[in-house]
């Protein structure tokens, strides 16, 4: 299991590969890997967005993410999990979050990664402030339900 907070841009595909290679004992054990990547859009609520700053609460963020992953491990037979989240100044098209879950079978991989992602959205202390093309800065007030 690994939880990482990144202050620089990260490559989610590289993170998945290096994690998988670093835990050699899972080789041959997993039949399913489910991956969620959240990426910054250049639009929100009808406005053009040119950048974003992601604030977090160092220490509490890691603690809450650790609890969320532990809860997923109690509910599903997860072999391994990786959570990477960006903080600091972010540009459109840069990844914000990666959740990867390795399990024996696909149903557990889908369900556990969904659980981790939804719990992260409601409980991990991160806050987004958008910089619009109009130079206006605005804090996001709440997350959406995840559908258009």
């Amino acid at each position, binding site marked *: 299991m690994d939880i990482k907070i990144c202050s620089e841009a990260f490559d989610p595909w590289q993170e998945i590969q290096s994690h998988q290679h670093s835990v050699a004992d899972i080789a041959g054990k997993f039949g399913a890997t489910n991956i969620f990547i*959240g990426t910054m859009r250049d639009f929100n609520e009808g406005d053009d967005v040119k950048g974003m700053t992601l*604030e977090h609460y160092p220490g*509490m963020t890691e603690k*809450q993410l650790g609890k969320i992953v532990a809860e997923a491990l109690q509910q599903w037979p997860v072999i391994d999990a990786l959570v990477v*989240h960006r903080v600091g100044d972010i540009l459109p098209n840069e990844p914000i979050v990666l959740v990867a879950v390795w399990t024996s079978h696909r149903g557990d991989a889908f369900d556990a990664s969904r659980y981790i992602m939804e719990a992260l959205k409601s409980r*991990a202390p991160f806050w987004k402030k958008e910089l619009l093309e109009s130079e206006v800065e605005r804090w996001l*007030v709440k997350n959406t339900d995840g559908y258009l």
Partner: protein
Amino acid sequence: MSIKVRYFASLKESIGRSEDILGLAGMATVGDVWRYANPNKALPDNTLAAVNMDYVELSSPVKDGDEVAFFPPVTGG
């Protein structure tokens, strides 16, 4: 005998401070901490609170050495 109070994101900007160090006298709960630290400002609706990096209710107790935090709903991911 003191507690550290931390503020984040839009709440930090609206009160103009990121933290306070307070004496514990007269404070029994997390709600007391807010009222003592911000006597002229009502706690905004939907504000979340934590003690020692775990979520708590405003009625939760505080003790010497605690780190109390107040912040708006989270918007990561």
